[in-house]
C-alpha cells in the first residue's frame, strides 16, 4: 500500500435482479481504479453472501460491460475519478473464460 500512489473512485452498487439485492444498502464505497470485473464480483459476493460459494457476476458501469480495469474504462470514456460511478451487477450469463487467472 505504501509503494505507488493509488487512486480510488467512489462507486454505488445496484442491481435490477431482486434475488441478488443487497439486504443492507452499503452506500458509497471507495475502490481502487486498478480493479477488473473479477475483483468487483468478489466485492459483491463479500457484501451479499460472504460465507457461501461465490456467484460470478458481470459488472456494468454506466450501462456498459466492464472488460478492462476501471482506470482504462474511465480513460476511454472520458470520465474522471471525481465522479461517483453507478456500478450495476448481474449474474454472469456465460461462465467467464479465464477463471484460472484469479
Amino acid at each position, binding site marked *: 500500500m505504501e509503494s505507488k500512489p493509488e487512486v480510488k473512485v*467512489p462507486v*454505488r452498487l445496484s442491481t435490477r435482479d431482486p434475488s441478488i439485492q443487497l439486504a443492507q444498502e452499503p452506500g458509497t464505497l*471507495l475502490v481502487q481504479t486498478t480493479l477488473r470485473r473479477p475483483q468487483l464480483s468478489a466485492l459483491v459476493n463479500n457484501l451479499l453472501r460472504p460465507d457461501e460459494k461465490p456467484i460470478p457476476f458481470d459488472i456494468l458501469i454506466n450501462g456498459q460491460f466492464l472488460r478492462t480495469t476501471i482506470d482504462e474504462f474511465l480513460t476511454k470514456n472520458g470520465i474522471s475519478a471525481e465522479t461517483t460511478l453507478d456500478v450495476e451487477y448481474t449474474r454472469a450469463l456465460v461462465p467467464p473464460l479465464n477463471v484460472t487467472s484469479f
Partner: protein
Amino acid sequence: HVHLSDASGLTPTTARALWLSHEASTHSLSQQLTESLRLILAPTLATKLRGDFRTGKRLNLKRIIPYIASSYKRDKIWLRRSLPSKRSYQVMIALDDSKSMAESGASNLALKTLTLVARSMAMLEVGEVAVTGFGDTVNVAHEFDKPFTSEAGMRVFEQFSFTQQKTDVRGLVHRSLDLFADARRRGSTSAGEDLWQLMLVVSDGICDSHSEIQRLVRRAQEERVMIVFVIIDSSVSVPTTTTAKQADGGKAEAVAEERKGIMDLQSVEISAEGKVVRWKYMERFPFRYFLVVRDVRELPGVLSGALRQWFGEVVGSV
C-alpha cells in the same frame, strides 16, 4: 444557483452576485466567529516567570548547582515575570476546486464557508488571510500580503469552477508549507509577537495518497503550521439517488431514506485474488484535526470550539 463559465470559473457578474449574497447571509455568523476568535487570540493574561537573568523576582532553582559549580560565574539565576506576548496570525483557506465538490453538491456550502471564515478573519484585523484553490494543481487565489476586502472576495470567487479532474491534497499541503515558510520569512510581525499559522482545508474530504499526506502533516507540525480539515458533508441536502427496490414495505423504505454521510463512507481494498477488506474511510483519515460541517450555521460554534481546544494543546506543548 451557481452558474459556471466552463473550466475558467465563475463569471465576474455571477461571482459578484454570489459573493454579496453569501456575505449578507453569513454576516451575523461572521461576527459571532470573530468574537470567539478574538478571545482565543487574545494574549494570555496569566503571565509566566521566565529565566535567565542576573536580577529578578525569584531564584531559578535549576541554575543554582551550575552557579556554584562554575565558581559563581554563571550567575543568570533569576526569573522575571514576562509580559504576555501579542499574537498575530496568518490563515490560509484552501478550497477544494475538484469536480467531486460540484457532483456531491458541496460547492455552494464550501463557498459560503469560505466567505464566512475569510470575513471573520479580516474583521479581526490582527493577521493576514490567503486563499488557495486546489484540484490537480494549486492556485493562489488571494495572497497573504493583500487586504481581504469584499472586492478581493469577488475576485477569489471568479477563480473557482469545481471542474478539476483530481483532488491532490498531498500536492496542496506540500505547496502550502512553502507558502507559509515564505510568509513567515517575509515576517510582517514585530518582535515579541507570536505568529500563528493556520491552514483551513475546506473540502468534501475525498482524497488519495494517505500515507504521503500523513508524512507531510507531521512536517507541518514540526514547522508549527496547524492544519484543520473542514469536511463539507452535503449528504443531507442532496436527494437520494440510489433506487433501493425493497419488497417488504415501509421499514425498508425508512432505511433507504437515511442518507449515508462521510462518517459512513467505506473504503475497500480488493486483492487481485479477490480478498476483500473494508473499513470506515474516516477511521484512517490522514489529518488529525478535522470537523464535519453540514450546515453553515454550525460553523462558528464548532470551529471556534475546536480551535480553542487545539490551540490550547499547541501552546501547552511548547
